[in-house]
């Protein structure tokens, strides 16, 4: 398959010492006699969204034909504004472990929970806790000696009972109507094996934990993702044929699978599927024999997203949730803007200006 070709205007040049044509220029008035004003039909025609890989924990998808400001908005929202439920208050009745209260409380707060955030509402600081906005968990664990430990053993697993406080010890205490509302999936940490503290005989932990809904711009523990990032599609153009005796050296300048060599003719070509995995290391430009025969670039409006879910959302659900958050934001601003417009027309004079 031959490498995909792109309009030169869509390419961000990657040169040995610098990058070129970084900013998008598709605005009205930039190119004479060209119409770049907003056009939904044109946008729909050029837009391509394609899921590439999906696992139980992560998703890779391409968004092609949008401006970086839109792609970046989605990335930022996925990281910081999609809500999740996390333990936010810890009431410590007893903690005789070597981990101090605030450190233990912090560690517990970071544990991802499997609670569907759409089933809960946000709790404002002034609100009282109810079964709609707060989820209660408890921890009760005491470590003791194992009377049946083999003689001479040095392994904590054999010597002691409950010598590790793990995330599986965080047990749900249903409140109000929660037992029915969360019947399908009982609230618990997504990973039961996180070690939160180590104990020795005589030490114990007893606490009550309140989980609330929140967003990661308030505290990073609320982030629904481990990572959410995008790259631009690499684009490699071979401008001069590569001599057959240099073919393998040329291939080694790129990431594995990016350059194909014809086994018979030793002609090199770019693999269209493989090129997306190139690191664009610019190694090829260090070799004087190749420097003039290849042009490296990235496609400005071709975003390769990678999102790793950590928490309640299935990976493929995170982008729709982010779009939902974005649209809610837009709706709120639009409403406020319309209110401002109504105010200015009804007063029949100019809008009262705030102090700058």
């Amino acid at each position, binding site marked *: 398959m031959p490498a995909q070709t792109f309009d030169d205007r869509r390419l961000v040049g990657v040169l040995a010492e610098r990058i070129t044509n970084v900013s998008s220029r598709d605005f009205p008035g930039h190119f004479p006699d060209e119409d770049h004003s907003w056009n939904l039909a044109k946008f729909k025609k050029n837009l391509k969204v*394609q899921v590439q*890989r999906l696992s139980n924990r992560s998703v890779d998808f391409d968004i092609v034909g949008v401006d970086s400001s839109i792609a*970046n908005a989605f990335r930022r*929202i996925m990281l910081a504004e999609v809500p999740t439920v996390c333990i936010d208050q810890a009431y410590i009745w007893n903690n005789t472990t070597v981990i101090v209260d605030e450190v233990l409380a912090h560690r517990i707060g970071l544990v991802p929970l499997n609670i569907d955030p759409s089933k809960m509402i946000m709790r404002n600081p002034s609100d009282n806790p109810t079964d709609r906005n707060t989820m209660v968990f408890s921890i009760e664990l005491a470590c003791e000696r194992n009377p049946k430990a083999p003689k001479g053993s040095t392994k904590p697993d054999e010597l002691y009972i409950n010598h590790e406080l793990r995330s599986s010890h965080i047990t749900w205490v249903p409140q109000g109507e929660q037992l029915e509302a969360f019947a399908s999936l009982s609230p618990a940490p997504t990973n039961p094996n996180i070690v939160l503290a180590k104990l020795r005989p005589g030490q114990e932990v007893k606490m009550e934990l309140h989980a609330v809904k929140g967003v990661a711009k308030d505290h990073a523990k609320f982030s629904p993702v481990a990572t959410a990032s995008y790259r631009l599609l690499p684009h490699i153009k071979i401008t001069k044929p590569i001599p057959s005796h240099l073919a393998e050296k040329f291939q080694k300048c790129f990431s594995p699978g990016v350059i194909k060599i014809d086994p018979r003719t030793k002609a090199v070509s770019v693999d269209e599927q493989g090129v997306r995995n190139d690191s664009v290391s610019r190694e090829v430009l260090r070799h004087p024999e190749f420097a003039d025969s290849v042009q490296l670039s990235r496609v400005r409006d071709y975003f390769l997203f990678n999102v790793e879910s950590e928490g309640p959302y299935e990976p493929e659900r995170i*982008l729709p949730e982010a779009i939902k958050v974005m649209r809610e934001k837009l709706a709120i601003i639009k409403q406020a803007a319309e209110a*401002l417009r109504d105010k200015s027309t009804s007063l029949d004079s100019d809008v009262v200006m705030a102090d700058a």
Partner: protein
Amino acid sequence: MAETVEKIKLLRGSPDLSLATYQIHDESHTIGNSLRWMLMKNPKVEFCGYSAPHPSENVINVRIQMYDNLSSLDALITALGDLDTVCETIEEEYLTSLRKGKFETWEEKS
């Protein structure tokens, strides 16, 4: 304490609102940059830019200057509506691609 803050404040503008700076509360580059892009797509907008004035102020300032003495507030409202259709279109395409199922699935160990 719980004083309600206006979502949008008009900071400085000409009487006909063809030149104006709006302060949007509780927003950041997420909305600022995409809104700036959509406003710049409007041929009647002479200039549009935004800034987050200070990290400890939870606001962004959006400056809009219009040609032909048109109202920047109307342009802002149109841009917000257009951005919403952009989001809607992308979501539809994404869900279509997900429904078609033409992608690699794999099992990831945690």
